[in-house]
């Protein structure tokens, strides 16, 4: 009955910073079925946000996806790609890492869309909310006018600088059409914004945080995406508003049946929303399975620690700091070839000095764990002595701020190359 929608193999995303190479996402595997709500949970600095951005193709310099396959199940796209790049197609699946950047970009909004953590900074402050949502609608409108199988689809960049300049005099040249504006108002209504007609003409600063997050959800829905990636969608909001926004997402999901990839540090949110969960640590998934697998039958000591630290499911839960010790360093030269959690793990043994593979675990078929405890019992005689890692770890103050690594390291200055470095000049 269920149909696989995304299959990610060995995804690695690295940031090349002054302090060294940061392995924000390391050899990451994931499967998501159509219609699922899949949650990724982890501390800040675990690489979960970078994972989300890698899937939506929003990694910016100095970050780069260095390895891996992202197979996306979309028959039309597979047909379109098959001619030029047969190697990127497998049945109805297409490897997004091997298609052209233009085609990849054309999936934004219509196949994948994203909700960001902080609605206030995720809207352009100087355009009205309605206009910004209408842009997203327009992307969808133009895309469906050019079905994916035709070549025109990848030429959706046909809106040129010339058109933009002309649009200041000729309304007919504007990118956003009247129909899209009307649809934007409908969407605002759909996400429960009162007086949508008036509010569409307001600027983001005139909205409250919760309203703006609703508007962002409307914007993300505008493209009628297959996958909605929600990156900490409620973290920036008040507790009462959080619940409302989650309700809204829930409702929209059951209405449209879309697939949601929910990134959060809040296990309460996971418990409420998700069918399946992946627990992320140091750039990889350390335990995954159904909600029951992870909440009731977990094996990994890190999962254990996370669960032990929830004060109350719906609580504010702030930043979760369940386990003693440092957030993992993602610097390549500090990671070493061992279980990345070993320095904080209460059960670390000699066997953990080798990077553990993924073991099947009890529970559902999907339950898998990257921990030796899935294969053997804890044996105190083989335990690693206290303080062992203090010596092997290089000078402790050189850690990249994990916050940076999570958000995509912002190095000192904005170093954002453009999509088309050879782009036109006005």
């Amino acid at each position: 009955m269920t149909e696989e929608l995304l299959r990610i193999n060995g995804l690695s995303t690295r940031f090349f910073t002054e302090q060294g190479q940061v392995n924000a996402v390391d050899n990451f595997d994931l499967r998501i079925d159509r219609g699922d709500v899949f949650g990724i949970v982890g501390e800040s600095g675990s690489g979960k946000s970078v994972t989300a951005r890698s899937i939506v193709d929003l990694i910016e310099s100095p970050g780069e996806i260095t390895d891996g396959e992202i197979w996306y199940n979309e028959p039309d796209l597979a047909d379109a790609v098959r001619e030029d790049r047969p190697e990127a197609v497998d049945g109805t699946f297409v490897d997004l890492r091997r298609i052209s950047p233009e085609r990849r970009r054309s999936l934004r909004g219509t196949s994948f869309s994203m909700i960001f953590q902080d609605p206030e900074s995720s809207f352009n402050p100087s355009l009205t909310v309605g206009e910004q949502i209408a842009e997203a609608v327009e992307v969808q409108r133009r895309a469906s006018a050019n079905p994916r199988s035709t070549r025109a689809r990848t030429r959706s960049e046909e809106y040129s600088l010339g058109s933009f300049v002309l649009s200041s005099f000729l309304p007919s040249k504007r990118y956003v059409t009247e129909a899209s504006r009307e649809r934007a108002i409908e969407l605002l209504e759909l996400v429960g914004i009162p007086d949508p007609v008036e509010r569409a003409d307001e600027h983001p600063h005139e909205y409250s945080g919760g309203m703006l997050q609703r508007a962002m959800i409307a914007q993300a829905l505008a493209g009628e995406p297959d996958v909605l990636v929600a990156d900490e969608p409620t973290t920036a909001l008040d507790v009462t508003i959080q619940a409302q926004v989650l309700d809204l997402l829930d409702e929209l999901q059951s209405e449209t049946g879309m697939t949601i990839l929910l990134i959060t540090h809040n296990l309460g949110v996971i418990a409420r929303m998700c069918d399946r969960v992946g627990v992320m640590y140091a750039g990889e998934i350390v335990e995954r399975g159904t909600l029951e697998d992870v909440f009731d039958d977990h094996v990994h000591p890190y999962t254990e620690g996370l669960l032990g630290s929830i004060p109350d499911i719906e609580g504010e839960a702030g930043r979760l700091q369940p386990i003693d010790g440092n957030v993992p360093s993602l610097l390549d030269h500090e990671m070493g070839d061992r279980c990345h959690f070993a320095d904080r793990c209460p059960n670390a043994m000699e066997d953990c000095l080798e990077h553990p593979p993924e073991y099947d675990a009890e529970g559902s078929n999907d339950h898998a764990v990257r921990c030796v405890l899935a294969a053997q019992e804890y044996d105190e005689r083989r335990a690693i002595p206290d303080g062992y890692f203090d010596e092997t770890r290089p000078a402790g103050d050189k850690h990249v701020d994990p916050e940076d690594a999570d958000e995509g390291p912002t190095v000192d200055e904005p170093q954002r190359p453009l999509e088309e470095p050879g782009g036109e000049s006005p």
Partner: protein
Amino acid sequence: MSFGKFLLKRSLQGLVVIWGVVTVLFGLRAITPGDPVNLIVDPAVDQATRDRIREELGLDQPIYVQYVDYLQDLLVGDLGYSYQSSRPVTTMVLERVPATLELAVAATVIALVIAIPLGVISGTRRNEPADYGATSFSLVGISTPNFWLGIMLILLLAVQIDIFPTGRRPVAFHDALWTFLTTFYVGDLLTWLHHIILPAVTLGTYFTALITRLTRSGMLDEYGKPYVTATEAKGIPGVLIRYKHVLRNTMIPIITVLGLQFGTLLGGAVVTETVFSWPGLGLRLIDGINNLDWPLIQGIIIFIGISYVVINIAVDAIYAKLNPRVIDE
């Protein structure tokens, strides 16, 4: 606050500033040493005549009466009479406005037309040759005194290769335009253009450099903001992200900088007019200062102050339209 109220508030503040400018100038004139009568007539003239002149100018009155008279005259647009030429200062100012305006507008146009594309290229192709070129140009541009630039342009393009005139303004733009509109004769317009190019480039270079710089760093800043990523995630064309979102937001603060720099533009015009004997307000101001012709100095500076205030209110209004947050702050 509504937009209208915002504008009203800014206008009232503007009036206060204009009053301040007017008062400062009155004060400066009052503390200037020396007897103005000596500037009008030969010092050897007999006392009776001197007293008569003093009375005519109102200089025999107590200072506050002079001040009130002065404000009253200003309200009806009367700036008094030049000591030097006895002509009404209002006329002397207004007849010089078109020349300075032409120069300022031409310089601004040159600056915007060159600087924005340059800034965009530089800001979007960071650390590529085009960026290095644009940044070096802007560094040199903001570091070059415009009178020297003007002289160097004269040296190269008027003296060495004789393709531009060394100065003067043989025909006013509005006359040339009128000639063209009535007789379809373009000669005058071309003459005007030929004469204004060097002065306009001279005056405009600093602003070109400045705007290039601001556009570049503004775009780099802007691209680092989260909304750009969020906008990219929507899948809209790159052109729209670059121009409708990023460049637009970059230009909004630059507009206010330009408003504040309007004074620099006029200051630059004074020097540029001197270099090219361009018969504008600046040249007249220098004349006035050389002759200590206070009514004239005062009139010109009041005019400049008022234009500054008006331009900045206009700029604030545009800014508020583009970025409505400021109204609420």
